[in-house]
């Protein structure tokens, strides 16, 4: 019998860790992984609230989030590969075409 609030707090911690990872890491692939961590934190919050509300609808939403995350990963990684082919680098500092 675990309080559902514990799960919710864990999801907040995971989301903040994902944000830290996104800002601290310098390569595109790991920044992308940090985005996945944030998505998973949101999933955990959804499932915790589904349990609190006693309704499986929240779990269906998580199902959709996972599907969209898979599509996002496929397109995002394709873009990262393209960037690597053009610049021979995946460091975020090297993407400064718009900075002039």
């Amino acid at each position, binding site marked *: *019998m*675990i*309080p*559902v*609030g*514990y*799960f*919710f*707090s*864990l999801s*907040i911690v*995971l*989301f*903040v*860790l*994902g*944000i*830290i*990872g996104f*800002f601290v890491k*310098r*390569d595109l*692939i*790991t920044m992308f*992984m*940090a985005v*996945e*961590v944030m998505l*998973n934190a949101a*999933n*955990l919050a959804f*499932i*915790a609230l*589904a*349990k*609190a509300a*006693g309704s*499986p*609808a929240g*779990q*269906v939403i*998580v*199902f*959709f989030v*996972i599907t969209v*995350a*898979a*599509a*996002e*990963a*496929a*397109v995002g*990684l*394709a*873009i*990262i*590969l393209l960037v*690597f082919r053009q610049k021979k680098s*995946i*460091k975020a500092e090297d993407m400064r075409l718009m900075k002039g």
Partner: protein
Amino acid sequence: MGIFLFFLLAILCVGGVLGMILSKNQAHNALFLVFAFACLGGLFGLLDAPFIAAVQIIIYAGAIMVLFIFVIMMVNLEQGISPEKKKWTLGLSAVLAVFLLVELGLAVRGMLGSLGRTGGPSIGSPTELGRLLFTDYLYPFEITSVLIIAALVGAIVLVKKKEKE
């Protein structure tokens, strides 16, 4: 027993994400993340969602992270990523993170206690989820399939090398 399992999985999960943030090697990052997602799958199981737990482990820890590892293999930077010279971005992100954590904590402070506890009637059986997916959520389900086709075609068109004429 349940609460012990929760803290074990939560600490392992946060540890995996911290390992991802601290480690310099991208392949290790991906493996840390697989570990964290597997622990998260266990937490979903604790929250009465066995089907989502299985999907999490098969799709996230399996398919998506394998995709990441393939891309890491293709990109293959031998010299690794040099550490960032500007240290102020690190401090700034730490300040931002603390602010965000406090803000989120304040936002949910009042409702955390009223969420109840796990246990009670089971809600996440695969039967129930399947029935919801094909009745109430039929349109989102179909739109998702269109989205996946679009992502598939988009990824192939993006990465395909142009033929030399």
